[in-house]
């Protein structure tokens, strides 16, 4: 017994013996870096440099090497400094020529020292430090002129560093690495001599202050999250890898304010700050800047995305209104899924998994290229049974409408991305993907569990030259769809849907000086949507146009004002005629110190009516009355849903402790929500429907609700990497939604959970074992859904369905028997009590998966 305990303790000790493995690499590296710099400023060079080396080992960054070199110089150890500079130069930084010059002089001095002679006062030991401020040590021997030159250079370089942090030039959302900047000292010249693997390791950090969290979604360019005018959350590839969750939407549960409502294995609805629903339509999901919003329904089909988790570099989330940047659909948030940069990572990565619920799948991701042409290609397959079925197969009244009623998701996908740099300053990106899939989704109103069996595909072109960027894409979706279950003998609701969306955007990003520094973004975009769908009564087409501008004005070093305005032209917004929706935004940022940022914003956002809401002409069978149908109609005169938001946020960090946090409070005023009207009688002459040969008992049409809603909320999040290997993340949100009382039942008020909490702990050991546990809690809600009256099926009534509070738990254990070659993972999802996340959704239960990852 004692032996067993002892062995357990030994195992635990071995596992917990922290080495260099990390759970939150960025945060850990930043902690080592800040601690090291502080020690160096206190002239504890050896200790400080050890910390910097530790930071570099966790997450290589050239600026760290530069600072190591500087510290060695300050310590008077030129040989060590030379070695560090040479390592720095291996990254081919943009300031290489200047550093090389300094290196040459340093080499000369070392040689001179080897041949003892008086130190030349003219020898400049190195370029001044780019990161340390106030630490410009000058050698005693430096002459006045040289000192002046040094100070001038230092001043110029410090300005350059400051500018580099904001002026990244074109920073494509689809790229993990930053674009080159002439101004950024210590920056890596993208695509130069740097090995691809190292470039990937550097990731988005390479051009900026070491280990600073950066985001491209909040301003169409790379910027620090401290400088973003939006409440943002970043989920890194590391987070994804270590998470217990195994779906994209489940990963979003960690975002404060996120409402993740899993209905089935391939079907989920995600919203931020309330207003979630079946067919959630107020959050814009992007993959590398390309919209995944299905314009005809207004939802995101998560299972139709052509990328797998293993291809994702990071997920950037804007919480709150994003229409000023992204227009319609970005009403309550934006999720931008950014995939790995072509040409980075392992040449091949093979993953296979199997698990409970008939789950199986795998993927292969290949990457390669040369200095000009880089690519990433992937294929993947996934299948999984439903968590639960609504009906058995032996019912005398209802029968499944699909071949395999157990199947919840089946997907075979392929994706390809390539970038080509024919010359300096010009980059062309081409990507395309297809996903042949079967998935569930939950339709609104009286409709329930649907399936779609078809294909989603896309093609995208990006051209970047200097400050100008052209983006164009085509989204395609084609599927046979229909209810998964139907009453035997009832009229079939099977349908076919085809959607083609063509989108083009031209944008221009440029900085200039005028009473401070300005960073200006301008752009125009157009979108053509063609949707053919039986439920709409045939082919429908819309053309949309938009123009946008944003200016970030740095009034002082610490105060910035960001103003944005976007005008979206929609063909139906003005009482059925073309109209313009304006989305202004004004933010004030105060950055009192590095690692601290306060923001206050006022913004408006909107959601344009979807094709479903505008054009639907759907006859829904009435249960038990085969001769009758209920008509659901679109409405061409809908106003857009409108949101006005006020938000105050504070993001801070204590890098030395390895902790960062974000606090946001908001007020949202929402009006003109689009919903279905109560059923009303049709004029007698329109009562008989020739198409279905049924009598229409009435009409329910999409309308703007008269109620106005007021949402107030608080969001908190914190991440900590207090010791190497350990990562802790906590987030929570409180919200209250009220209405002005015009509606008898306030659905959005009752359906929004008051409290949401999420927490995760991950731990990686040097023994190549890693653990992750995460859990989320969502408070009780009440869902108002339409159902035929039990006493009279021709009457439709609102039913209140209570949904108890629920918790989700996921866990993961990973082991690498062969480092960087073979990895095994055991993952358990929904390990808590079986539960539903919507009254009509599947009952989610435990599932265990075993994953094998092979890197040939």
């Amino acid at each position: 017994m004692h032996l067993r305990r002892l062995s357990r303790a030994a195992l635990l000790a071995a596992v917990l013996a922290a080495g260099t493995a990390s759970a939150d690499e960025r945060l850990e590296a930043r902690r080592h870096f800040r601690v090291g710099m502080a020690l160096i400023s206190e002239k504890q060079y050896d200790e400080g440099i050890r910390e910097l080396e530790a930071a570099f080992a966790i997450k290589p960054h050239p600026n760290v090497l530069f600072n190591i070199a500087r510290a060695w110089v300050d310590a008077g150890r030129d040989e060590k400094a030379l070695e560090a500079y040479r390592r720095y130069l291996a990254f081919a930084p943009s300031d290489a020529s200047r550093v090389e010059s300094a290196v040459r002089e340093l080499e000369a001095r070392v040689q001179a020292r080897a041949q003892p002679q008086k130190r030349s006062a003219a020898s400049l030991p190195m370029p001044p430090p780019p990161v340390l401020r106030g630490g410009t040590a000058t050698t005693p021997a430096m002459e006045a002129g040289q000192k002046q030159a040094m100070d001038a250079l230092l001043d110029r370089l410090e300005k350059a560093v400051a500018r580099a942090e904001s002026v990244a030039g074109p920073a494509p959302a689809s790229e993990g690495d930053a674009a080159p900047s002439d101004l950024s000292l210590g920056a890596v010249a993208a695509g130069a001599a740097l090995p691809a693997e190292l470039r990937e390791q550097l990731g988005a950090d390479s051009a900026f202050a070491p280990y600073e969290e950066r985001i491209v979604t909040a301003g169409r360019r790379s910027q620090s999250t401290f400088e973003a005018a939006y409440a943002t959350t970043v989920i890194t590839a590391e987070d994804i890898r270590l998470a217990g969750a195994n779906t994209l939407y489940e990963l979003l549960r960690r975002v404060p304010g996120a409402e993740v409502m899993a209905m089935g294995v391939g079907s989920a609805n995600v919203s931020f700050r309330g207003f979630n629903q079946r067919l959630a339509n107020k959050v814009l999901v992007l993959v590398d800047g390309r919209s995944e919003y299905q314009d005809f329904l207004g939802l995101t089909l998560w299972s139709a995305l052509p990328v797998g988790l293993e291809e994702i570099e990071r997920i950037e989330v804007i919480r709150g209104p994003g229409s000023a940047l992204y227009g319609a659909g970005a009403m309550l948030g934006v999720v931008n899924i950014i995939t790995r940069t072509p040409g980075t990572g392992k040449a091949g990565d093979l993953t296979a998994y199997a698990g409970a619920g008939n789950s199986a799948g795998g993927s292969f991701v290949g990457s390669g290229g040369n200095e000009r042409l880089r690519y990433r290609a992937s294929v993947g397959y996934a299948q999984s049974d439903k968590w639960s079925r609504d009906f058995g197969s032996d019912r005398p009244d209802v029968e499944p409408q699909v071949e395999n009623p157990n199947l919840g998701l089946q997907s075979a996908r392929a994706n390809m991305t390539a970038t080509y740099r024919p010359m300096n300053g010009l980059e062309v990106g081409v990507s395309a993907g297809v996903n042949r899939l079967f998935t569930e989704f939950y339709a609104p109103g009286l409709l329930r569990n649907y399936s779609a069996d078809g294909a989603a595909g896309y093609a995208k072109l990006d051209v970047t030259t200097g400050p100008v960027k052209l983006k164009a894409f085509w989204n395609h979706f084609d599927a046979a769809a229909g209810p998964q279950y139907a009453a035997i003998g009832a009229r079939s609701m099977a349908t076919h849907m085809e959607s083609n969306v063509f989108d083009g955007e031209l944008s221009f990003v440029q900085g200039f000086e005028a009473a401070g520094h300005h960073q200006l973004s301008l752009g125009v975009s157009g979108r053509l949507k063609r949707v053919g769908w039986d439920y709409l009564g045939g082919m429908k087409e819309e053309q949309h146009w938009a123009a946008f501008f944003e200016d970030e004005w740095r009034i002082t070093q610490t105060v910035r004002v960001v103003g944005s305005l976007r005008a979206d032209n929609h063909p139906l917004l003005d009482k059925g005629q073309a109209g313009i929706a304006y989305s202004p935004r004004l933010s004030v940022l105060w950055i009192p110190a590095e690692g601290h940022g306060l923001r206050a914003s006022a913004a408006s956002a909107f959601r344009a009516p979807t094709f479903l809401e505008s054009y639907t002409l759907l006859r829904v069978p009435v249960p038990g009355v085969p001769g009758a149908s209920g008509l659901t109609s679109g409405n061409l005169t809908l106003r857009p849903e409108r949101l006005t938001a006020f938000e105050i946020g504070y993001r801070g960090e204590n890098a030395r402790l390895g902790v960062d946090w974000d606090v946001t409070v908001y007020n949202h005023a929402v009006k003109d929500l689009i919903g279905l009207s109560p059923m009303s009688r049709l004029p007698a002459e329109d009562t008989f429907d020739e198409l279905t040969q049924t009598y229409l008992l009435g009409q329910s049409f999409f309308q703007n609700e008269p109620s106005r809603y007021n949402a107030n909320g608080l969001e908190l999040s914190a991440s900590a990497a207090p010791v190497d290997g350990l990562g802790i993340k906590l987030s929570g949100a409180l919200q209250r939604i009220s209405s002005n009382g015009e509606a008898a039942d306030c659905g959005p008020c009752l359906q929004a959970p008051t409290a949401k909490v999420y927490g995760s702990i991950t731990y990686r050991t040097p023994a190549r074992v890693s653990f992750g546990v995460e859990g989320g809690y969502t408070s009780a809600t009440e869902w108002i859904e339409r159902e035929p009256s039990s006493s009279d099926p021709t009457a439709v009534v609102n039913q209140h369905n209570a949904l108890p509070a629920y918790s989700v738990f996921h866990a993961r254990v990973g082991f690498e028997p062969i480092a960087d070659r073979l990895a095994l993972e055991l993952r358990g999802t929904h390990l808590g009590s079986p539960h539903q996340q919507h009254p009509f959704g599947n009952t989610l239960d435990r599932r265990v998966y075993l994953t094998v990852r092979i890197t040939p």
Partner: protein
Amino acid sequence: MRMLRLALVSLVTLAACEPPPVVPTADKRQNSSFARVEGSVVVQSAARGNVVVLLYSASRPPPPQGTGRPMGFTFLSAEEVFGDDLVPAPGKSPSSGPFTARFSFDTVPEGSYLLRGFIDSDTCIVGADPCRPSDWLPWYSVTAEVNAGDVGGAAVDPLTLQPRIIEVREEGGQLVPVDQVTVTFSDSAHVPIERPSFKVELLPSDTSVLDVSSAQPKVVILKPLAVKEGSVSTAPPAFMLRYEGFDATGKPLDTNGDGIPEVWPKVLVRKLTDTPHSLTEENDLNSDGVLDAEGVEYPLAPGLEADGAPDRVVLAAGFLPETLAALHAQDGKPLAGTDGKPLAVPVTQLQLAITKRALDARDLTRPLPLAAIPAGRYGITLVSFTGQTWKVPNELDPDIAEPLGLPEVQGQEFTVQVPLR
């Protein structure tokens, strides 16, 4: 070792690829048991038109046997039923079939049912001039009736020729669907008369208000109403008046023992909700013909104990002797046909006496007197011996007709008003 064990356990778990459990959601249908009723219509008729099959609860048969309303209906187009024989060849009479087509009722709960139906005759198909197209619309009382020329049908027992009771019952823990039900239609079931559509006329200087202080009943005159506009087509030349039956002595039946013989059309003066222009009957807010579980209850006459349930309030009413006189020969004997059954007599008006007596007609066979006449609005319903009905007020009320796409007909908003005391 531990990892290996975990991996093995997981592999065992993986091997157990159980199908997903069946777990009904909050959707009520998933938590209810239903079956289906299926079968065929068999039409032996020269009439042409769409076929409508109606499902009734056996305990609530439709008029004239009861007051039930259909629980469901299904529609079979004329093309589907008559196929290539829909339009007769030039110069030829339409074929009488037989024609068959399948029908199905889904989502039928456990219970006993009756199936009725009719051919919604479309004489335009056979080239009649003038012709009358199919005109049945289920959602309005003024259109949800068969007309003269339609052909009735029913599911009947082939041996007894009595209406067949269709039982949806549970066996082995599950409801068993009913198949092979035949609903037959034949020319022998032609609907002989138009709906008893009527308008109300008041005596000179009278109003719609029922003067409860007066001992005299209120007399109103019902006259045939012709409306042929839009979706409404009715033009009864007269009301067909007849006794319900004769007893063994040849006297008209007095089923409820109130001293007044039972006649067709039956008349009902029913209390409505107080909302102006509402057609909803009090205590039947969903208009399904069944009293609501909760509603208004009025005190019963002294000596009677309240049942604690919502009331179906009606005013006792009957035709004046002047009207009933048409049913008697000059010698005073009731008119009878050669088969001894009561003879139907066309009359161009019905003089209706509305008494100052209110009843709770929850049990139609045993109405209970109320202590007082509840104040409010009362509507008048006529039910002919064919089961066809007409109500006033109805959807032709000029204040509500227009949005329903129905013609506005003055007088169809009429209600008897009982003022508050």
